[in-house]
């Protein structure tokens, strides 16, 4: 069973539907007991980093997610949920993240040419690095759907995919059992479903 962490940010309907589409049992929950009993954890997120990490900490769920990830349970952060896995974010100030993946979150404006639009929105091709089990059903150049203005920086050891948008932006990261996707697998058609399918088989 997959526990989709509900900490009051974003709409979890699509995520839940996409997991159902790959035949996974999923529950949207904020109950620590359910999260501890789950086989794997999905950490979603939209909006601003500061607001999200505050909500995650106040609800006590940051502690549960971190504890479970450290104990080896597969964890997948999506979009802002991926960014929360890092040590630090520089989105409107400076915020401490969960620290499950080395690196920090910085504005893409720092690294892309000024004539490119922000946010980085739309379908972009993945450039795969190494052979991550998360991407076992993917091939080089498969497109996924992005919507973001910040990206994972100084996390080279954990990068498993990038996408080119004026610079090679971090598209996905992995460190042992902890995974993160900057893009939205639940909005990335068959390719996205195959990523979720692979996550559910980890």
């Amino acid at each position, binding site marked *: 069973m997959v526990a989709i962490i509900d900490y009051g940010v974003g709409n979890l309907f*699509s995520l839940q539907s996409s997991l159902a589409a790959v035949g996974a049992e999923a529950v949207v929950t904020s109950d620590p007991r359910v999260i501890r009993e789950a086989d794997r954890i999905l950490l979603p997120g939209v909006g601003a980093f500061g607001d999200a990490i505050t909500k995650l900490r106040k609800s006590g769920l940051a502690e549960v997610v971190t504890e479970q990830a450290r104990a080896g349970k597969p964890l997948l952060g999506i979009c802002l949920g991926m960014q929360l896995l890092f040590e630090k974010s520089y989105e409107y100030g400076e915020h401490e993240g969960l620290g499950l993946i080395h690196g920090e979150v910085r504005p893409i404006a720092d690294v892309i040419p000024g004539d490119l639009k922000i*946010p980085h929105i739309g379908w972009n091709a993945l450039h795969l690095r190494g052979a991550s089990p998360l991407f076992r059903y993917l091939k080089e150049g498969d497109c996924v759907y992005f919507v973001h203005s910040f990206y994972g920086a100084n996390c080279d050891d954990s990068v498993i995919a990038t996408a080119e948008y004026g610079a090679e932006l971090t598209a996905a990261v992995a460190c042992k059992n902890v995974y993160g996707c900057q893009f939205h697998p639940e909005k990335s*058609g068959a390719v996205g479903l195959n990523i979720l399918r692979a996550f559910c088989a980890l």
Partner: protein
Amino acid sequence: MITKRIIPCLDVKNGRVVKGVNFLGLHDVSSPVELARYYSEQGADELVFYDITASAEGRALFTDILTEVARTIFIPLTVGGGINTVEDFDRVLKCGADKVSVNSGAIRNPALITEAAKRYGDQCVVLSVDVKRVGGEFRVFAKGGREDTGMEAISWIRRCVNAGAGEVVVNSIDTDGVKKGFDLPMLQAVCDAVSVPVIASGGAGRIADFTTLFKMLPKVDAGLAASIFHFHEVDLHDLKRELAEQGIPVRR
């Protein structure tokens, strides 16, 4: 590199697709769910649903249909039609829509864009604007293109983007339905004025119209069309193949 998006648009009334479609192999060509699945499988990058229902009962039906669509396909969904309040945003987003398109609602109350962008983020708010040339200037039309608002279009679009609209759909009334190609001068003017994604609508009649659009105006992000897809005058597979062959980045 980010790919150019191809977006079929479906008009829905009382839970059924209107304007008619002409497909072989679909059991129910007026079922939004079946059509959404079909377009998704054919390679549509995004879908737009316009709710043109007048009654409250019809709107509730639309909400149910949308939930079903969002449960069936996994590409971005934009919903428009009758969006006048933040509560309307809330209603369709809860059903699984990713973006909400505002047109007349923003003309009546421009604060709607700011309010919605603050609550849901800029990327969620799509400005849709019907534009027609009047006396040598681009004019904003309301009520499905029937009413001249007297407002100059480029300054209206700029104002809405500054207020928080994250994307602009430019529908040229002058080229709509003519099938002789997109309105390149109008789109050029919009691209020069704003730095958010611009979606071209109105005028596509054949594959070459899309290649021309993206070649002449590299700043345009997406092409939207309805009847040419519904009546299979343009096949999504063929369109994507041709765009790729012409060196335009597309998702395949």
